[in-house]
């Protein structure tokens, strides 16, 4: 992965925010107008994400995320490593974190378990996706499906057995790019400013939330 840092996108520039369920319709309208291909119907998705972790010898936990598209079963699964987010100073417009993306086959979970990873938790993400140039905008709602029985292997995502986590949608604007492309951060910031009255996209450090 580190052999040719110029070719492989390694940094994710991201801004996050949230919007109430009642106002999400307006946000979607605005996004459709702002983003590419406004004439096409909005792209929807339903993903399931598993978070696996392993402790390396120094005692630090390494987390890997496995994402699966539930609507398009034939698509490959996606394995992702996210580094520690860097807030940076005020001059930096977005959160930056290193990331490694790999498309993989659907037995990746088994592979990770064999390697010694343990599944921490999982969640479902359902929402809308937009694109503007290299910008990816995701408006998604996080769901949790309780597994009642241990033996049950695959809980089905249905209206009856999902639990919403919050009364709001998660909004993410991100670009994956080679490190050092700071102008992109400003691009994200400009885009985020256009959504300003509806949703405030900020640099959110998950460590502080915890």
């Amino acid at each position, binding site marked *: 992965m580190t052999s040719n840092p110029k070719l492989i996108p390694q940094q994710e520039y991201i801004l996050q925010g949230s919007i109430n369920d009642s106002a999400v319709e307006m946000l979607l309208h605005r996004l459709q107008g702002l983003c590419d*291909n406004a004439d096409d119907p909005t792209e929807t998705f339903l*993903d399931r994400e598993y978070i696996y972790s392993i402790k390396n010898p120094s005692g630090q936990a390494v987390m890997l995320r496995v*994402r699966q598209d539930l*609507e398009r079963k034939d*698509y*490959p699964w996606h394995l992702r490593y996210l580094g520690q987010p860097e807030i940076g100073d005020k001059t930096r417009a977005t959160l930056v974190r290193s990331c490694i993306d790999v*498309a993989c086959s659907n037995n990746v979970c088994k592979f990770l378990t064999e390697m010694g990873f343990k599944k921490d938790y999982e969640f479902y993400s359902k929402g809308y*996706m937009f*694109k503007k140039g290299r910008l*990816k905008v995701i408006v998604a709602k996080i769901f949790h499906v309780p597994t009642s029985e241990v033996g049950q292997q695959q809980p089905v995502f249905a209206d009856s057995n999902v639990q919403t986590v919050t009364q709001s949608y998660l909004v993410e604007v991100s670009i994956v790019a080679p490190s050092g492309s700071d102008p992109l951060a400003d691009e994200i910031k400009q885009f985020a400013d256009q959504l300003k009255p509806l949703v405030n996209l900020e640099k959110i450090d998950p460590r502080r939330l915890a």
Partner: protein
Amino acid sequence: MSENLARMVQRIDFNSIESEEDNDDTSETKESPSLAAPQWPWESARNKIRSALTEIHVLEDVLNIAKEKKYLVLDPVSQDSVDTKPIVSLVAKKKAFAVAASIIMSGADRIKQSKNDASRSQTSDFHSELMQMRQSWRLRRAGNSIIGDLSYRSAGSWYPHPGNFEVTKNEDPPKTQASPNQSSNSPIGPGPKQSALKVKIPSDLEGVAYIHVCVQEGRNELDDDPIKPVIDLEALSKIELTWQQKLENAQNVLFCKELFAKLAQEAVQVQFPIPTIVNSNVIIATLFPGIQLNIGLVHLTPPKKKRKFGKFENHEIAEKNNESVKFPHKHVLEHTLHQLLREIHYNALHHPMPHPTTATLGLSRLRYFAGPEAYDRHVLTESCKNETMLEQIIAQAQHFVLRDQALKTIDDLSKEIKEAIIIVHCLCLNSPIRSCIKIVIVSSGYESLNRTPVTIHVSSKNMTIICREGKKYTLHYDVGLLRETLLSIISHHHLSTIQNLCKLMGWRCISYTSNCGIGSIEQIGTASSLLIASPNDERVISIRHGPTSGAVVAVSTNPRDQDFYPSSIIRDRKWQNIQSNYKSIDLTKMPGKNLINKIETLMSFAKG
């Protein structure tokens, strides 16, 4: 401090008051020199204040007397001049007001009128038209000017031309006074006469352009300009265009330029079996030997603006054009080129969305699947192969030429062949590089007896002929081969029709050879032969049919007499079945519409 105060007091000028006091009470003034001796610094000030106090007392008394009105009545002094003055001032004021009012009124009128004028013709129209323009064009402000964008960049183009135009206010005086009313009546689109907007288009985007595509048959000199523009420049210069039309034209010019630039770039980069030639504004690609495709950029500017050398040239081309149009412009191929470029633009913007959402944006589906699906090198290299626009247009042009030639060949053949009827049907469901021609061969009058269906698949470089029995011939672009193959199929059709006729008439088919080795050698293909016998075996008809030589018919008799007299040579009755010699029949002298008809006649005679 006190000294300073004293100095200030000294400055106070009491002289005027003193002078009055001098007249009033002289006794005091006379005393004053004695008192005036500066005993202490406030002396003079005290004196002044005392005298002032006295005066105030007097004044108070006078006022009291006047107020009580017992002793004194104060009457206002009436003066004539005072009476006349208010009227004069009133008149003066009235006049002044009238003048001011008239100034304001005239000013208001002027503003109103200018506003009306403006709404009718220029100023407000400028804004409303600008708003209309904004609805269909991208505009932005740069300093004091308004710059618009003609380019296809927002639609996915990467052509480096800036494609800017400038919008200014039309300062030209209106041509007629009546025109403003007219233009205000038309809310949609700018008035045809006078528009408040003026667009300034880059000089290289002026005029009219299109991509001329033609197929040239026969090898001409390369320097012979194959592109013949079909635009009347004189008519073009006369047309007054609105800004919308002007901008559309300019955008079209830009599009054509981009298209041609892309084609020219491909023509240089891509290695074709027969290299393409880019000659100034023409790309020449060889489709088949002797047939070439010319793609040219025709860009004509109105002749009134001809100042440069290049534009004179255009004019000359137009003059040449009037003489003759050698190779007609293929609108279908031009349209295809436009479509191809638009598809490229579309693909530049429409990437598949990543799924799941964290997946990398902008990867093609195939590349994304490559890892998990473990695609091998072959699949990956195949996926990287991207047919260029020029390759696609050449393939389409080749197909276009080949299909035309095939149809022409079939048409000629059906005109030429009187013996059989060739029914041609082109399927409407086809693709730009693949089409299908269905042929049914029947004999006139015997349609229900035998039908020979043939299907021809025409692709860009070869043709495939599929016969009923499953025979498949793959031919290259040579239509002569198609003709020959069809001729031999027709030849076979005749014999199979006769075979069917035999069954109908009760005759017997003794032998059938599709490639008989007897007789003169055919120029193409092989002749086939058929031997049929009458129901009572008395007559045998032999038919030989070749694709080029036609039919040769011979009849042999086989008399079966009731009596048999054995002789020294023929001892057994069976030898009587030996046929006599064949007698050739001159078909041209026989009555009948076609070969089948003649054979039928022959059969009916032979039967008897």
